[in-house]
């Protein structure tokens, strides 16, 4: 797979016939060329599999649970996928979610301020950490793996150290009785019932993020920059793409995602354990990769990351619905994900061959 920008869809009503690059391709062809195609097939396969082996999997209420599990991963998988298309990693994404929740909770509590003040301060902090990652990366030119590994460890320590120093214990104090809690909870951790399905609001956040990210990637100049930076950095710089700004922006995107996830974490429980979140960064990356993002950058999609998160959610909950031996949970999870990804790769290869 060479690094390429996505084939620009020909503008409707295009009259210039001579250039073959502007030839209209059929809808099927265009679908086959999308990065997320393989993962969609994988998702359908996983869905059918659990529909057959687990009788309670097909219930409407179960669907709500699976969607919730997928959305919690998906909200972070979207910005992480964008970052990977831009050719970089963020290992601090998992604990950054916890940091976001901790900042919000402790700021409001310690100053006895309205909850919304803490929520906004938390947004500023997560974006600032994103800028820190981005600036460190662009200034030092070290691999993002090392830079964000450092941030990951520092944040893990800060989460614990600051929480203990400020709250006296390793979890935050309850903020459920403070002003603004109910309205913030409604925005970040409420649920709606549609046709017997309990839909958590995180699902809506997730879909909105996917839509916005897809629009940015396919319809804006910033989207082209992201593909260019991840594909061939020096070439991109040579044609005038603001490489550094794009990267910093991508890290800020991860900060934004972490902020949303973090606020959800806080407002669904009203207290936060400071040690949480370690290891989740890999799950976000896994979701993006299952969804068709290349680890080397330059290729992938936001919709793909959503499908990847959905596969992960279906598999991890499907095993519970199927009532398999819990001791083997991790084995089944790994095997299912591997199979889904193999299917994904196979389909993509086929699709490219027919092009």
């Amino acid at each position, binding site marked *: 797979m060479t690094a390429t920008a996505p084939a620009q869809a020909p503008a409707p009503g295009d009259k210039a016939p001579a250039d073959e690059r502007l030839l209209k391709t059929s809808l099927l062809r265009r679908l086959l060329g999308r990065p997320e195609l393989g993962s969609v097939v994988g998702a359908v396969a996983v869905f059918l599999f659990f529909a057959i082996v687990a009788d309670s999997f097909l219930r409407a*209420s179960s669907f709500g649970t699976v969607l919730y599990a997928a959305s919690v991963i998906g909200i972070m998988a979207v910005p992480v996928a964008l970052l990977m298309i831009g050719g970089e990693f963020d290992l601090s994404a998992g604990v950054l979610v916890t940091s976001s929740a901790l900042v919000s909770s402790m700021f409001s*509590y310690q*100053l006895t301020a309205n909850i919304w003040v803490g929520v906004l301060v938390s947004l500023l902090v997560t974006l600032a950490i994103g800028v820190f990652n981005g600036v460190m990366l662009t200034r030092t030119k070290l691999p993002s793996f090392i830079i964000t590994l450092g941030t990951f460890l520092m944040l893990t320590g800060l989460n614990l150290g600051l929480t203990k120093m400020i709250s006296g214990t390793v979890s935050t104090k309850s903020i459920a009785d403070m002003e*603004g809690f109910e309205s913030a909870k409604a925005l970040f951790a409420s649920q709606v019932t549609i046709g017997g399905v309990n839909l958590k609001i995180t699902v809506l956040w997730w879909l909105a993020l996917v839509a916005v990210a897809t629009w940015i990637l396919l319809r804006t100049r910033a989207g082209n920059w992201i593909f260019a930076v991840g594909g061939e950095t020096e070439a991109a710089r040579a044609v005038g793409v603001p490489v550094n700004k794009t990267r910093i922006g991508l890290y800020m995107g991860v900060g934004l995602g972490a902020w949303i996830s973090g606020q959800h974490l806080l407002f669904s429980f009203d207290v936060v354990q400071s040690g*949480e979140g370690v290891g989740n960064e890999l799950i976000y990356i896994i979701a993006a990769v299952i969804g068709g993002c290349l680890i080397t950058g330059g290729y992938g999609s936001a919709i793909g990351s959503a499908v990847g998160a959905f596969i992960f959610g279906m598999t991890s909950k499907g095993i519970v619905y199927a*009532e398999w031996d819990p001791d083997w949970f991790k084995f089944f999870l790994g095997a299912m994900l591997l199979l889904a990804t193999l299917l994904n790769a196979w389909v993509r290869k086929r699709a490219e061959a027919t092009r």
Partner: protein
Amino acid sequence: MRTHRKAAALLAVCALALAAGCSSGGGKASEEKNGEGGGAGGKAVTTDRLKIAMVTHSGEGDTFWDIVQSGAKQAASKDNVEFLYAANKEGKEQAQLIDSYVAKKVDGIVVTLAKPEAVKAAVQKAVAAGIPVVTINSGGEHSEAVGALSHIGQEESVAGEAVGEELNTRGKKKALCVIHEQGNVSLEARCAGVKKTFRGTVENLNVEGTNMPASTSSIEAKLQTGKDIDTVVTLGAPFAAATVKAKAGAGSDAEVNTFDLNAEVVRQLKAKEIGFAVDQQPYLQGYLAVDGLWLHRTNGNVLGGGKPVLTGPALVTGKDVPALEKYTARGTR
């Protein structure tokens, strides 16, 4: 110049937000109004300054070990002891930490035996070097073999059995045991203990302990499948809250019961969202370990007479809440 202006604007926004947004309920202000003394700070004795180290298998940010430490620190400040603490989940790393304290020639070491094989050699080296060792928490059956003075903790299987019996008296038929760290020996022992005495059936469920939303949805999925589950036993306090949430999501009316206490669990006991909690009094484990070593150093005492000293299980229900609330709020119960 531009950055200056930006920073100033940022500060102004923060100040404005602060001025506009004060909460009239809860928060630090209400805590201060209630006026709560912490568990630390006591009067020192006149014995020589000792140095006692504690090495545990705690993960990062675990509430439970935080309470153990508060107990140990309280005893340390009372006994004129300098208290040192280190922890690592890996048995091998834990052994190295013990070695380093032996090299430092501390006056006593407190150790957990979650992975007895891994730390055995290090503990024996400490004993050989003339440093008294007290073991705490789980692994009481290995304590004597590694040469420790005494063991202070809870027998995990005994605690599990107590839960099983309590579930019998509550007339439960099918229990779900939620393990938040797969492969942890003491957690498995708790579930096995429940299984031993409980007359109904017990099913285990492994969840991702470091990921609350994922834990919640896994428990929710399990409750949707097993509609006949009428009680859920969680093995750590934060997971009780996750189960209460999952229960609502799954439309289940199973009773939630949990091991260990924290402020949130006490609130839920009060609100009747949780049936009972099993307290193993972690504060006591930290306190007695340091105090025991101090007594051994200064008065030649040995605690327990060769048998483990049990700090639990103590069953706590909504009735006990009024007495407990203020202790959990300051993190000593």
